[in-house]
């Protein structure tokens, strides 16, 4: 079984930014199924690892650690980049 240890004390779970996600998407999405476009891993969006201390927020895959979702806040609104997600499935 593959398991990488992302050994970073600043790392959080995507659940920690559920409020921002809900603000951008309009609904609660941490229970959505998310498929990583890089390695194909599927899991609840809330399992993604979150880095929130930069100018934007980055959510990474728990298996391959590639970026699945990221966004930046700008004066004219948030820009959400979902290219690392093959799909999001409401549940």
């Amino acid at each position, binding site marked *: 079984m593959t*398991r990488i*240890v*992302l*050994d*970073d*004390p*600043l*790392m*959080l*779970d*995507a*659940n*920690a930014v*559920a*409020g921002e996600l*809900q*603000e951008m998407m*309009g*609904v*609660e999405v*941490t*229970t959505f199924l998310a498929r990583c476009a890089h390695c194909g891993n599927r*899991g*609840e*969006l*809330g*399992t993604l690892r979150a880095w929130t201390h930069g100018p934007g927020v980055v959510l990474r895959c728990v298996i391959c650690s590639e970026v699945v979702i990221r966004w930046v806040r700008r004066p004219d609104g948030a820009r959400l980049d979902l290219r690392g997600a093959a799909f999001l499935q409401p549940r």
Partner: protein
Amino acid sequence: MVEPLRWQIGTVTAIQPQTPRVSSFTLALPDWRPHRPGQHYDVRLTAADGYQAQRSYSIASAADRAGEVELGVERIADGEVSPYFHEVLVEGDQVELRGPIGGYFVWEPGMGGPLLLVGGGSGVVPLMAMLRARRAAADPTPAALLYSSRQIDDVIYREELQRLASEPNGPAVFHTLTREQPSGWDGFARRIDGPMLTEVLDRLGGIGSGPSAYICGPTLLVENAAAALTDLGLAPALIRTERFGPTT
């Protein structure tokens, strides 16, 4: 029709110190919504110059307290928000917040189990909401809590946990004190590890019972506990985590 999540102004109605570093803040909300155990609220402070600091705080209260919510807030010495709660806020003050938020780190009566709760420090707060909801609903799901603190004075909800554990159908409650133990201490006295989790799991019928695990606390504690459970054979899909970030 889904109501959008909006910032609202809550009023502090009670402040109850739990430990030297953690207090419970009860806030009355004009737009209160029932929450699910494990959810949190975002709190936002705005300085005179417009600078904003935002943090998330777990809900401790069971969902039956309409109109108000109890948040557990640990004082982080160099924090931007928690020192304001602990040093400035008094009853009657107002705070901007939004919630309840999150569906991933949620357990509520009817979701089944067995329920394995692992908490470190103030990470016990959302787990307490789950135990309170379980009790309120007289939910029969077997439950166990493993709770890591530095020392006995840092244990939040100590008496309530003792009371819960002594009730019929109450959860099994295990404490570990990692830094200092009082004389005669009969709980664990080390960081959470595999053998400790095995002992706790024995109360739930072992790893083979397929427990739903909820782990909340400082990032490294969560990481270690989740890895230990995976090594014991628990499927990663049964492990839910909520990392608080670094400890101070």
